[in-house]
């Protein structure tokens, strides 16, 4: 099947039952999206599919045929971090980092939709992303910082 991943047209052989997450990680060499539960419960595998936030572990690889996927690997511009990534680094929102790619993608999706979310809106939007290390305090601060960074405030 063919799909567009991070702007590149890719061709890949995937078994029928394989998730998009497995296709990305094991077939396309993009292990940035993480595999913490593979059951749709943790958000560590979050990617954008045609611009919409999905858990890639719940999407069949085949369902992404001829569509456009964006993963965490596409956000930075070389050495220049995306403002969301910069904010996560600066605010101490990263510990083990296993949840981080998913949270970065989810935050990016949220701030694209809603440039200045309230704290409650952030909590709602990120409630599908589990972090076992941080207790979320620094992540919530990072989202506010990222909003400022993305929209130049």
């Amino acid at each position, binding site marked *: 099947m063919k799909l567009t991943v991070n702007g590149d047209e890719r061709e890949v052989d995937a078994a029928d039952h394989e998730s998009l997450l497995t296709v990305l990680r094991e077939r396309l060499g*993009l292990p*940035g999206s*993480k595999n913490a539960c593979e059951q749709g419960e943790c958000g560590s595998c979050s990617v954008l599919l045609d611009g919409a936030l999905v858990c890639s572990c719940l999407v069949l690889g085949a369902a992404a045929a001829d569509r456009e996927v964006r993963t965490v690997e596409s956000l930075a511009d070389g050495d220049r971090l995306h403002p969301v990534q910069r904010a996560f680094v600066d605010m101490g929102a990263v510990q083990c980092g*296993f949840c981080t790619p998913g949270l970065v993608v989810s935050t990016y999706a949220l701030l694209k939709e809603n440039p200045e979310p309230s704290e409650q809106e952030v909590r709602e939007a*990120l409630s599908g992303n589990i972090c076992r290390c941080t207790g979320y305090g620094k992540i919530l601060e990072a989202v506010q910082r990222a909003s400022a960074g993305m929209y130049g405030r």
Partner: protein
Amino acid sequence: MSVAPVRSRIRGVVGESVERPDAVAKVKGEFQYGSDLNREGMLFGATLRSPHPHARILGIDVSGARRMSGVRAVITSAELPTRELFGLMKLDQPVLATGRVRYAGEPVAIVAADTAEEARVAARAIAVRYDVLPPITDAVAALQPGAASLHSKGNVIEDVLVAHGDPDARADVVVEGEYELAMQDQAALGPEAGLAIPRRDGGVELHVATQWLHEDLRQIAPCLGLPESKVRLVLAGVGGAFGAREDVTLQIHACLLALATKRPVRMTYGREESFYGHVHRHPAKLWYAHGATKTGELVFVRATIVLDGGAYASSSPAVVANAACFGAGPYRVPSARIHAVGAYTNNPPTGAMRGFGAVQSCFAYEAQMDKLAAKLEMDPVVLREKNALRNGDRIVTSQPVEGSAPVAEIVRRCADLPLPEMEIPRDPIGLPGGAGNLTFGEGVRRGTGLAAGMKNVCYSHGFDDFSTARVRLMRDERGPLARVHTAAAEVGQGIVAVCVQIARTELGVQRVEIDPPDTTIGSAGSSSASRQTWMTGGAVLAACREVKAELLSRARRTGRSLDDLPALLEEPIDKTVTHRHPDTEPRDVNTQNQGHVAFLFAAHRAVVDVDVDTGLVKVVQVATAQDVGKAINPLAVVGQIEGGIAQGLGLAVMEEVQLAEGKVRNASFTDYLLPTTLDMPTVVVDLIEHPHPDAPYGAKGVGEPPTISSTPAIVAAIRAATGRELNRVPVRPDDIVFGAPYRSGWRIRPGDDPRGAVRA
């Protein structure tokens, strides 16, 4: 001798909040975790596990699996190179079940195949015939004289008595209670994962996400029938640990498969297998009695504590000792009798989890302190202040608390932190049940509770605790550069940043790089017991000081200024130092000696809203005061504290590995609930910095106290809101709505040996 003029130009030294050296790779998705490892031509491993908690194995037929497509190796206990057992503290665990299985989930056979799917399918195709035996699932029952023995020496893993002061002490006021904690899962997000690569010399190299490379090595090599020199371990990226990676899980299996197939083999557990694959927090049953004078001075604490060690010992002996040693909490207690026993059962094995035994007793003694305050009609905060340990006071093991013991200050400062501004909200979204829209607030009550706790830092009871660091100071085209090599496992806690900060501070060099941790350098000990800052930080500090001494002597010899680093570093300086903390004493019969290096203290205050109609709880705020000695990287210290509180909140109101007849009922993130952004409240942190004289820069270690007293504080708040007894965690909605307290079904007088328990 001072390098101050150089140091003043350096950014990111000790005491400043710094960016983690691995943060950029992590936000970009480029950091390589164990499950991301890849090698040309690698195979995939899978494990067949026992479905029964207790059974004899009558036969294993692997012929079908061997013939399946893509299968390269199938190994059962019959094919193992040796009969060696493994285990952290007792060698009691077979690499693959041999004749008998002792828990549901015990590995029986392993498979390597061309794809992960083929390996899984082949593992399922192995036919095992079992003779199913009745499981022992109640730890108290396991200890009784008539119980079937699960191991050759019986079912007692460890038995620790703390006997202190007057055994017959009498008090004006006595309160008693029985308590239970369920099994908690560490639920590190990164699954267990490793890649084993066979070496030409017949050895093997294992890249693995672990907490302690050298301890893994010590256990792995004999089980492979290899000398340690032929096994090399390299740390793969670790996606959280919290104790779950202290034990060997897939390490030996991956190596065996790689050696058998002569191909690299990757093993990664899925989430369900992860629940079976690693040890959990010990479930506990506790019986307590506290006695005090009419004016509220503690007179005695008596307690019996039974910890369910599951099928294999893991670190149970040390967990049992901790539960006993800290069983009276951060208070002055003239007389104590605390009897803690760990039992083998057919439940999944339990071992290390953040807080390590101190969590279990803290839940009970803090509930007791509140009961005592109520009976004395005293403010619970005042009762705690009044009995708080001070510098020089002895804990119930007779060891004086030295260095920093600001318990009364912690309790008071925590109690005085600002309360949430908000009243009980009107909008359902902010109420218990949240977006479920379950209430408009009619049945919602607010409650506040406070708890304090204590624990040791570093290893105790005579264990030879050390860490080795190598520091090289050199120059390259970009100028001076320091490289730090240790075997310390970065598991998320931030030891890599601490090492960088220490090297910058000591050497006055901006560029510091951390070499990948592996077993080519001496052990750093485990990333556990809140010890890496003290131990590996201490080793890096000592190595830096040797490097600096050499630098100064070069400067003196050559008449150059220290600012002229490039010239002084024509030859690099290279120093390796092994750092030990002062010796501790092994346990004696009554556990009355200097068993620990130092103690950590924290207090937590929780504010909760509880819907008494649905039994749902919303934690509104947690405030904490913690003595960290010195915050080396304050941002990371706060991150550790907030994260630890989240795990304490989980144990208080939602996290439980549910067991039915020894089988895990909820081995998934769908059914094992973890705190999300909607569950975690705002956390208010008051960092107290009383430097400990023996610790590097006075920094005592941070990781565990947040998980110890946050749970009892939250439960105390729920009790205050509801009036319910709530003597079991996690607190379930039914416990709140119906209010039936937990009963163990056993009668034990607090302080007595649980082997004399009678059925209630």
